[in-house]
Protein backbone atom coordinates (compact mmCIF):
# COMPACT_ATOMS: atom_id res chain seq x y z
CA UNK A 1 0.00 0.00 0.00
CA UNK A 2 3.03 2.28 0.49
CA UNK A 3 3.56 2.15 -3.26
CA UNK A 4 -0.01 3.31 -3.94
CA UNK A 5 0.49 6.19 -1.49
CA UNK A 6 3.77 7.09 -3.20
CA UNK A 7 2.02 7.22 -6.60
CA UNK A 8 -0.81 9.39 -5.22
CA UNK A 9 1.65 11.70 -3.44
CA UNK A 10 3.74 11.98 -6.61
CA UNK A 11 0.67 12.96 -8.68
CA UNK A 12 -0.42 15.58 -6.14
CA UNK A 13 3.05 17.04 -5.72
CA UNK A 14 3.52 17.18 -9.47
CA UNK A 15 0.18 18.97 -9.86
CA UNK A 16 0.92 21.48 -7.10
CA UNK A 17 4.14 22.38 -8.95
CA UNK A 18 2.93 22.21 -12.53
CA UNK A 19 -0.75 23.17 -12.20
CA UNK A 20 -1.54 21.19 -15.33
CA UNK A 21 -4.88 19.71 -14.28
CA UNK A 22 -6.62 21.79 -11.62
CA UNK A 23 -6.85 25.31 -13.11
CA UNK A 24 -8.73 24.35 -16.30
CA UNK A 25 -10.94 21.92 -14.41
CA UNK A 26 -11.78 24.39 -11.63
CA UNK A 27 -12.49 27.37 -13.89
CA UNK A 28 -14.62 25.31 -16.24
CA UNK A 29 -16.54 23.75 -13.34
CA UNK A 30 -17.12 27.07 -11.56
CA UNK A 31 -18.27 28.75 -14.80
CA UNK A 32 -20.63 25.91 -15.67
CA UNK A 33 -22.31 25.78 -12.27
CA UNK A 34 -22.55 29.58 -12.22
CA UNK A 35 -24.31 29.67 -15.60
CA UNK A 36 -26.65 26.79 -14.78
CA UNK A 37 -27.53 28.10 -11.32
CA UNK A 38 -28.55 31.42 -12.82
CA UNK A 39 -31.30 29.64 -14.70
CA UNK A 40 -32.98 28.78 -11.37
CA UNK A 41 -35.07 31.20 -9.28
CA UNK A 42 -32.87 32.81 -6.56
CA UNK A 43 -33.31 31.23 -3.15
CA UNK A 44 -35.21 28.29 -4.57
CA UNK A 45 -33.00 25.82 -2.76
CA UNK A 46 -34.13 26.90 0.71
CA UNK A 47 -36.32 24.27 2.34
CA UNK A 48 -38.81 24.76 3.77
CA UNK A 49 -39.67 27.81 1.75
CA UNK A 50 -41.68 30.20 3.91
CA UNK A 51 -43.26 31.87 0.95
CA UNK A 52 -42.61 29.58 -2.00
CA UNK A 53 -40.72 31.24 -4.80
CA UNK A 54 -42.25 30.63 -8.19
CA UNK A 55 -40.70 27.48 -9.63
CA UNK A 56 -38.86 26.69 -6.38
CA UNK A 57 -40.08 23.13 -6.11
CA UNK A 58 -39.23 22.34 -9.73
CA UNK A 59 -35.86 24.00 -9.27
CA UNK A 60 -35.03 21.77 -6.31
CA UNK A 61 -36.00 18.79 -8.45
CA UNK A 62 -33.41 19.65 -11.07
CA UNK A 63 -30.75 21.11 -8.76
CA UNK A 64 -28.99 17.78 -8.30
CA UNK A 65 -28.90 17.14 -12.03
CA UNK A 66 -27.41 20.59 -12.68
CA UNK A 67 -24.76 20.09 -10.03
CA UNK A 68 -23.75 16.64 -11.23
CA UNK A 69 -23.83 17.48 -14.92
CA UNK A 70 -21.41 20.33 -14.18
CA UNK A 71 -19.18 18.09 -12.10
CA UNK A 72 -19.11 15.41 -14.82
CA UNK A 73 -18.02 17.76 -17.60
CA UNK A 74 -15.41 19.51 -15.46
CA UNK A 75 -14.14 16.19 -14.12
CA UNK A 76 -13.69 14.85 -17.64
CA UNK A 77 -11.10 17.56 -18.30
CA UNK A 78 -9.17 16.65 -15.17
CA UNK A 79 -9.40 12.88 -15.52
CA UNK A 80 -8.23 12.99 -19.12
CA UNK A 81 -5.28 15.24 -18.26
CA UNK A 82 -4.31 13.13 -15.26
CA UNK A 83 -4.02 10.01 -17.44
CA UNK A 84 -2.33 11.89 -20.28
CA UNK A 85 0.49 13.13 -18.01
CA UNK A 86 1.47 9.53 -17.27
CA UNK A 87 1.51 8.68 -20.96
CA UNK A 88 3.48 11.70 -22.10
CA UNK A 89 7.08 10.62 -22.34
CA UNK A 90 5.89 7.02 -21.81
CA UNK A 91 6.20 7.54 -18.03
CA UNK A 92 3.64 4.82 -17.50
CA UNK A 93 6.35 2.38 -18.63
CA UNK A 94 8.49 3.48 -15.67
CA UNK A 95 5.64 2.34 -13.42
CA UNK A 96 5.19 -0.88 -15.40
CA UNK A 97 8.91 -1.68 -15.14
CA UNK A 98 8.86 -1.23 -11.35
CA UNK A 99 7.87 -4.23 -9.22
CA UNK A 100 4.48 -2.76 -8.36
CA UNK A 101 1.20 -4.64 -8.47
CA UNK A 102 -0.89 -2.95 -11.21
CA UNK A 103 -3.79 -2.87 -8.74
CA UNK A 104 -1.69 -0.59 -6.52
CA UNK A 105 -0.88 1.67 -9.47
CA UNK A 106 -4.63 1.91 -10.08
CA UNK A 107 -5.37 2.66 -6.42
CA UNK A 108 -2.64 5.32 -6.27
CA UNK A 109 -3.81 7.05 -9.46
CA UNK A 110 -7.49 6.79 -8.41
CA UNK A 111 -6.67 8.27 -4.98
CA UNK A 112 -5.03 11.28 -6.62
CA UNK A 113 -8.04 11.69 -8.92
CA UNK A 114 -10.31 11.47 -5.87
CA UNK A 115 -8.45 14.44 -4.38
CA UNK A 116 -8.69 16.38 -7.67
CA UNK A 117 -12.45 15.76 -7.81
CA UNK A 118 -12.91 16.79 -4.19
CA UNK A 119 -10.94 19.96 -4.89
CA UNK A 120 -13.16 20.65 -7.91
CA UNK A 121 -16.26 20.24 -5.78
CA UNK A 122 -14.79 22.46 -3.06
CA UNK A 123 -14.82 25.25 -5.65
CA UNK A 124 -18.12 24.39 -7.33
CA UNK A 125 -20.17 23.78 -4.22
CA UNK A 126 -19.86 27.31 -2.76
CA UNK A 127 -21.10 28.75 -6.09
CA UNK A 128 -24.01 26.31 -6.01
CA UNK A 129 -24.75 27.18 -2.36
CA UNK A 130 -24.58 30.96 -2.88
CA UNK A 131 -26.86 30.92 -5.90
CA UNK A 132 -29.32 28.22 -4.87
CA UNK A 133 -29.24 28.91 -1.14
CA UNK A 134 -29.96 25.43 0.23
CA UNK A 135 -30.59 25.16 3.98
CA UNK A 136 -27.31 24.82 5.93
CA UNK A 137 -28.62 21.59 7.47
CA UNK A 138 -28.34 19.93 4.05
CA UNK A 139 -24.59 20.46 3.72
CA UNK A 140 -23.43 17.29 5.54
CA UNK A 141 -25.76 15.21 3.39
CA UNK A 142 -24.58 16.85 0.17
CA UNK A 143 -20.95 16.33 1.21
CA UNK A 144 -21.63 12.67 1.89
CA UNK A 145 -23.14 12.24 -1.59
CA UNK A 146 -20.15 14.01 -3.15
CA UNK A 147 -17.63 11.79 -1.40
CA UNK A 148 -19.55 8.59 -2.21
CA UNK A 149 -19.82 9.57 -5.87
CA UNK A 150 -16.15 10.57 -6.04
CA UNK A 151 -15.08 7.01 -5.26
CA UNK A 152 -16.86 5.69 -8.35
CA UNK A 153 -16.01 8.64 -10.60
CA UNK A 154 -12.32 8.59 -9.75
CA UNK A 155 -12.21 4.81 -10.34
CA UNK A 156 -13.98 5.04 -13.70
CA UNK A 157 -11.87 8.03 -14.69
CA UNK A 158 -8.61 6.32 -13.80
CA UNK A 159 -9.46 3.06 -15.52
CA UNK A 160 -10.92 4.43 -18.74
CA UNK A 161 -8.72 7.55 -18.77
CA UNK A 162 -5.69 5.26 -18.86
CA UNK A 163 -7.26 2.89 -21.38
CA UNK A 164 -8.13 5.79 -23.70
CA UNK A 165 -4.48 6.90 -23.78
CA UNK A 166 -3.55 3.75 -25.66
CA UNK A 167 -5.96 4.69 -28.44
CA UNK A 168 -5.03 6.90 -31.36
CA UNK A 169 -8.37 8.75 -30.95
CA UNK A 170 -8.05 9.62 -27.26
CA UNK A 171 -10.41 12.60 -27.28
CA UNK A 172 -13.13 10.48 -28.89
CA UNK A 173 -12.60 7.31 -26.88
CA UNK A 174 -12.42 8.94 -23.44
CA UNK A 175 -15.98 10.36 -23.36
CA UNK A 176 -17.31 7.27 -25.12
CA UNK A 177 -15.97 5.12 -22.28
CA UNK A 178 -16.55 7.46 -19.35
CA UNK A 179 -20.00 8.92 -20.01
CA UNK A 180 -21.97 5.65 -20.15
CA UNK A 181 -20.02 4.17 -17.24
CA UNK A 182 -20.77 7.17 -15.05
CA UNK A 183 -24.54 7.02 -15.60
CA UNK A 184 -25.39 4.82 -12.57
CA UNK A 185 -23.26 6.94 -10.24
CA UNK A 186 -24.46 10.27 -11.60
CA UNK A 187 -28.08 9.15 -11.63
CA UNK A 188 -27.83 8.07 -7.99
CA UNK A 189 -25.93 11.19 -6.99
CA UNK A 190 -28.33 13.58 -8.70
CA UNK A 191 -31.37 11.77 -7.30
CA UNK A 192 -29.89 11.81 -3.79
CA UNK A 193 -28.99 15.51 -4.08
CA UNK A 194 -32.41 16.46 -5.45
CA UNK A 195 -34.07 14.30 -2.80
CA UNK A 196 -32.13 16.12 -0.10
CA UNK A 197 -33.06 19.48 -1.56
CA UNK A 198 -36.74 18.46 -1.62
CA UNK A 199 -37.18 16.72 1.71
CA UNK A 200 -34.07 17.62 3.68
CA UNK A 201 -33.34 13.96 4.45
CA UNK A 202 -32.21 10.72 2.77
CA UNK A 203 -35.55 9.14 3.67
CA UNK A 204 -36.91 6.99 0.87
CA UNK A 205 -33.60 7.27 -1.00
CA UNK A 206 -32.06 3.98 0.09
CA UNK A 207 -32.27 2.43 -3.40
CA UNK A 208 -30.14 5.26 -4.84
CA UNK A 209 -27.64 4.97 -2.00
CA UNK A 210 -27.39 1.21 -2.55
CA UNK A 211 -27.03 1.68 -6.32
CA UNK A 212 -24.22 4.21 -5.87
CA UNK A 213 -22.33 2.15 -3.29
CA UNK A 214 -22.75 -0.99 -5.41
CA UNK A 215 -21.23 0.75 -8.44
CA UNK A 216 -18.47 2.21 -6.26
CA UNK A 217 -17.54 -1.32 -5.25
CA UNK A 218 -17.89 -2.64 -8.81
CA UNK A 219 -15.68 0.08 -10.32
CA UNK A 220 -12.98 -0.07 -7.64
CA UNK A 221 -12.83 -3.86 -8.01
CA UNK A 222 -12.97 -3.72 -11.81
CA UNK A 223 -10.15 -1.17 -11.90
CA UNK A 224 -7.93 -3.09 -9.49
CA UNK A 225 -8.47 -6.40 -11.30
CA UNK A 226 -8.26 -5.21 -14.91
CA UNK A 227 -5.61 -2.46 -14.67
CA UNK A 228 -2.91 -4.99 -15.46
CA UNK A 229 -4.55 -5.69 -18.83
CA UNK A 230 -5.06 -1.98 -19.48
CA UNK A 231 -1.34 -1.40 -18.98
CA UNK A 232 -0.19 -4.28 -21.16
CA UNK A 233 0.03 -4.00 -24.90
Amino acid sequence: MKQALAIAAKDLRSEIRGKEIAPAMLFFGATLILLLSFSLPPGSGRAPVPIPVAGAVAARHVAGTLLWTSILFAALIGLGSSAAIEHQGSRIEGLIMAPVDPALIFIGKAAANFVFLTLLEAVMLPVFVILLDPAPGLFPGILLVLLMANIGLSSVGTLFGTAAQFSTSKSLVLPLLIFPSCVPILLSASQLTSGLMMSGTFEGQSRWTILMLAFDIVYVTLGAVTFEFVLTE
Partner: protein
Amino acid sequence: MNSVLNATGVGKRFGRVVALRAVDIDLTEGETLLVKGPNGSGKSTLLRLLAGLTRPSAGSVEIEGRPPATVRRSVGYLGHDPYLYPNLTAEENLSFYSKLYGLDESRGAAALSSVGLEKWNRPVGQLSKGDTQRAAIARCLLHDPRYLLLDEPLTGLDRSGSELVLELMRSFSGTLVVATHLDGGIKASQTLDLGTEAI
Protein backbone atom coordinates in the same frame (compact mmCIF):
# COMPACT_ATOMS: atom_id res chain seq x y z
CA MET B 1 28.08 -21.28 -17.90
CA ASN B 2 24.31 -21.32 -18.11
CA SER B 3 22.65 -18.75 -20.29
CA VAL B 4 20.59 -16.23 -18.35
CA LEU B 5 19.12 -14.12 -21.14
CA ASN B 6 17.69 -15.89 -24.15
CA ALA B 7 15.84 -14.77 -27.21
CA THR B 8 14.82 -17.40 -29.72
CA GLY B 9 13.62 -16.29 -33.12
CA VAL B 10 12.15 -13.18 -31.56
CA GLY B 11 10.51 -10.80 -33.99
CA LYS B 12 7.98 -8.01 -33.97
CA ARG B 13 5.39 -6.77 -36.43
CA PHE B 14 3.17 -3.72 -36.09
CA GLY B 15 0.32 -4.62 -38.41
CA ARG B 16 1.95 -5.13 -41.79
CA VAL B 17 5.15 -3.37 -40.77
CA VAL B 18 7.98 -5.64 -39.72
CA ALA B 19 9.90 -3.87 -36.92
CA LEU B 20 12.27 -6.73 -36.11
CA ARG B 21 13.05 -9.96 -37.95
CA ALA B 22 13.82 -13.18 -36.09
CA VAL B 23 16.74 -12.58 -33.73
CA ASP B 24 18.53 -15.10 -31.52
CA ILE B 25 20.38 -14.04 -28.37
CA ASP B 26 22.12 -16.22 -25.82
CA LEU B 27 23.89 -14.42 -22.99
CA THR B 28 25.52 -15.86 -19.89
CA GLU B 29 25.86 -13.96 -16.63
CA GLY B 30 28.15 -10.94 -16.84
CA GLU B 31 28.25 -10.82 -20.63
CA THR B 32 27.78 -7.63 -22.64
CA LEU B 33 25.87 -7.61 -25.91
CA LEU B 34 26.28 -4.68 -28.23
CA VAL B 35 23.32 -4.24 -30.56
CA LYS B 36 24.31 -2.20 -33.58
CA GLY B 37 22.41 -0.97 -36.55
CA PRO B 38 21.16 2.11 -38.35
CA ASN B 39 18.02 4.00 -37.34
CA GLY B 40 14.93 1.88 -37.91
CA SER B 41 16.76 -1.42 -37.83
CA GLY B 42 14.84 -2.58 -34.75
CA LYS B 43 17.34 -1.93 -31.92
CA SER B 44 14.81 -0.18 -29.68
CA THR B 45 12.14 -2.76 -30.47
CA LEU B 46 14.54 -5.54 -29.48
CA LEU B 47 15.32 -3.88 -26.15
CA ARG B 48 11.62 -3.32 -25.45
CA LEU B 49 11.04 -7.01 -26.16
CA LEU B 50 13.84 -7.97 -23.77
CA ALA B 51 12.36 -5.66 -21.11
CA GLY B 52 8.93 -7.22 -21.55
CA LEU B 53 7.36 -3.91 -22.55
CA THR B 54 6.29 -5.32 -25.89
CA ARG B 55 5.05 -8.78 -26.72
CA PRO B 56 6.86 -10.58 -29.51
CA SER B 57 4.95 -11.41 -32.67
CA ALA B 58 7.21 -14.43 -33.13
CA GLY B 59 9.66 -16.32 -30.97
CA SER B 60 10.21 -15.89 -27.25
CA VAL B 61 12.33 -14.06 -24.69
CA GLU B 62 13.38 -15.52 -21.37
CA ILE B 63 15.40 -14.09 -18.51
CA GLU B 64 16.53 -16.71 -16.03
CA GLY B 65 14.15 -19.10 -17.77
CA ARG B 66 11.12 -16.89 -17.17
CA PRO B 67 9.20 -14.27 -19.18
CA PRO B 68 10.80 -10.81 -18.74
CA ALA B 69 7.66 -9.33 -17.19
CA THR B 70 8.08 -11.62 -14.18
CA VAL B 71 11.68 -10.62 -13.41
CA ARG B 72 11.40 -6.85 -13.73
CA ARG B 73 12.83 -6.37 -10.23
CA SER B 74 16.15 -7.54 -11.67
CA VAL B 75 16.05 -5.43 -14.82
CA GLY B 76 17.11 -1.82 -15.37
CA TYR B 77 15.82 -0.37 -18.63
CA LEU B 78 16.75 2.89 -20.28
CA GLY B 79 14.61 3.69 -23.29
CA HIS B 80 14.34 6.79 -25.42
CA ASP B 81 12.25 8.49 -22.73
CA PRO B 82 13.72 9.14 -19.28
CA TYR B 83 10.51 8.12 -17.41
CA LEU B 84 10.99 11.12 -15.13
CA TYR B 85 8.34 13.64 -14.06
CA PRO B 86 9.25 17.15 -15.25
CA ASN B 87 7.68 19.03 -12.32
CA LEU B 88 9.62 17.04 -9.74
CA THR B 89 13.31 17.46 -9.03
CA ALA B 90 15.73 14.70 -10.01
CA GLU B 91 16.03 13.79 -6.34
CA GLU B 92 12.24 13.64 -5.88
CA ASN B 93 11.94 11.46 -8.98
CA LEU B 94 14.54 9.04 -7.68
CA SER B 95 12.99 9.10 -4.23
CA PHE B 96 9.66 8.18 -5.83
CA TYR B 97 11.18 5.27 -7.72
CA SER B 98 13.00 4.16 -4.53
CA LYS B 99 9.60 3.86 -2.83
CA LEU B 100 8.24 1.83 -5.76
CA TYR B 101 11.19 -0.55 -5.50
CA GLY B 102 10.86 -0.72 -1.70
CA LEU B 103 14.28 0.86 -1.21
CA ASP B 104 15.56 3.38 1.27
CA GLU B 105 15.00 6.91 -0.07
CA SER B 106 18.68 7.74 0.38
CA ARG B 107 19.44 5.38 -2.52
CA GLY B 108 18.18 8.06 -4.90
CA ALA B 109 20.82 10.57 -3.82
CA ALA B 110 23.53 7.90 -4.08
CA ALA B 111 22.42 6.94 -7.60
CA LEU B 112 22.40 10.60 -8.70
CA SER B 113 25.85 11.08 -7.24
CA SER B 114 27.11 8.00 -9.14
CA VAL B 115 26.19 9.64 -12.47
CA GLY B 116 27.67 12.98 -11.45
CA LEU B 117 24.42 14.96 -11.53
CA GLU B 118 24.95 18.18 -9.59
CA LYS B 119 21.59 19.84 -10.28
CA TRP B 120 19.65 17.18 -8.39
CA ASN B 121 17.39 19.78 -6.72
CA ARG B 122 16.15 21.30 -9.97
CA PRO B 123 12.90 20.17 -11.65
CA VAL B 124 13.73 17.66 -14.36
CA GLY B 125 11.85 19.81 -16.88
CA GLN B 126 14.49 22.51 -16.37
CA LEU B 127 17.49 20.21 -16.83
CA SER B 128 19.52 20.01 -20.03
CA LYS B 129 19.17 16.90 -22.20
CA GLY B 130 22.49 15.62 -20.91
CA ASP B 131 21.55 16.08 -17.26
CA THR B 132 18.15 14.48 -17.88
CA GLN B 133 19.95 11.50 -19.43
CA ARG B 134 22.21 11.26 -16.37
CA ALA B 135 19.14 11.27 -14.09
CA ALA B 136 17.50 8.61 -16.28
CA ILE B 137 20.60 6.40 -16.05
CA ALA B 138 20.56 6.88 -12.26
CA ARG B 139 16.94 5.71 -12.29
CA CYS B 140 18.00 2.52 -14.12
CA LEU B 141 20.80 1.79 -11.67
CA LEU B 142 18.81 2.70 -8.56
CA HIS B 143 17.79 -0.85 -7.62
CA ASP B 144 21.10 -2.57 -8.47
CA PRO B 145 19.68 -4.57 -11.38
CA ARG B 146 21.34 -7.77 -12.54
CA TYR B 147 20.34 -7.02 -16.13
CA LEU B 148 20.81 -3.64 -17.71
CA LEU B 149 19.15 -2.80 -21.03
CA LEU B 150 20.38 0.51 -22.39
CA ASP B 151 19.00 2.08 -25.55
CA GLU B 152 21.38 4.73 -26.90
CA PRO B 153 22.70 5.57 -23.41
CA LEU B 154 25.14 8.22 -24.65
CA THR B 155 22.44 10.35 -26.29
CA GLY B 156 22.70 14.00 -25.25
CA LEU B 157 25.75 13.46 -23.05
CA ASP B 158 28.83 15.62 -23.34
CA ARG B 159 32.32 14.10 -23.36
CA SER B 160 32.66 13.83 -19.59
CA GLY B 161 29.14 12.43 -19.28
CA SER B 162 29.84 9.86 -21.99
CA GLU B 163 33.07 8.79 -20.31
CA LEU B 164 31.31 8.46 -16.98
CA VAL B 165 28.52 6.32 -18.43
CA LEU B 166 31.03 4.16 -20.36
CA GLU B 167 32.91 3.62 -17.10
CA LEU B 168 29.64 2.69 -15.36
CA MET B 169 28.99 0.14 -18.11
CA ARG B 170 32.51 -1.28 -17.87
CA SER B 171 32.22 -1.67 -14.09
CA PHE B 172 28.74 -3.19 -14.27
CA SER B 173 29.02 -6.78 -13.10
CA GLY B 174 25.67 -8.02 -14.40
CA THR B 175 24.46 -8.83 -17.90
CA LEU B 176 24.37 -5.82 -20.16
CA VAL B 177 22.65 -5.18 -23.47
CA VAL B 178 23.48 -1.88 -25.15
CA ALA B 179 21.83 -0.67 -28.33
CA THR B 180 23.65 2.07 -30.15
CA HIS B 181 24.59 3.26 -33.58
CA LEU B 182 27.93 4.52 -32.14
CA ASP B 183 29.97 1.72 -30.58
CA GLY B 184 33.12 3.63 -29.59
CA GLY B 185 34.34 2.69 -26.13
CA ILE B 186 31.89 -0.12 -25.46
CA LYS B 187 33.64 -3.44 -24.88
CA ALA B 188 31.26 -6.24 -25.71
CA SER B 189 31.58 -10.00 -25.51
CA GLN B 190 28.97 -10.38 -28.26
CA THR B 191 27.79 -8.12 -31.04
CA LEU B 192 24.51 -8.26 -32.92
CA ASP B 193 24.46 -6.15 -36.04
CA LEU B 194 20.86 -5.53 -37.04
CA GLY B 195 22.11 -3.48 -39.94
CA THR B 196 22.80 -6.68 -41.82
CA GLU B 197 19.49 -8.22 -40.78
CA ALA B 198 17.53 -5.05 -41.24
CA ILE B 199 14.07 -4.85 -42.59
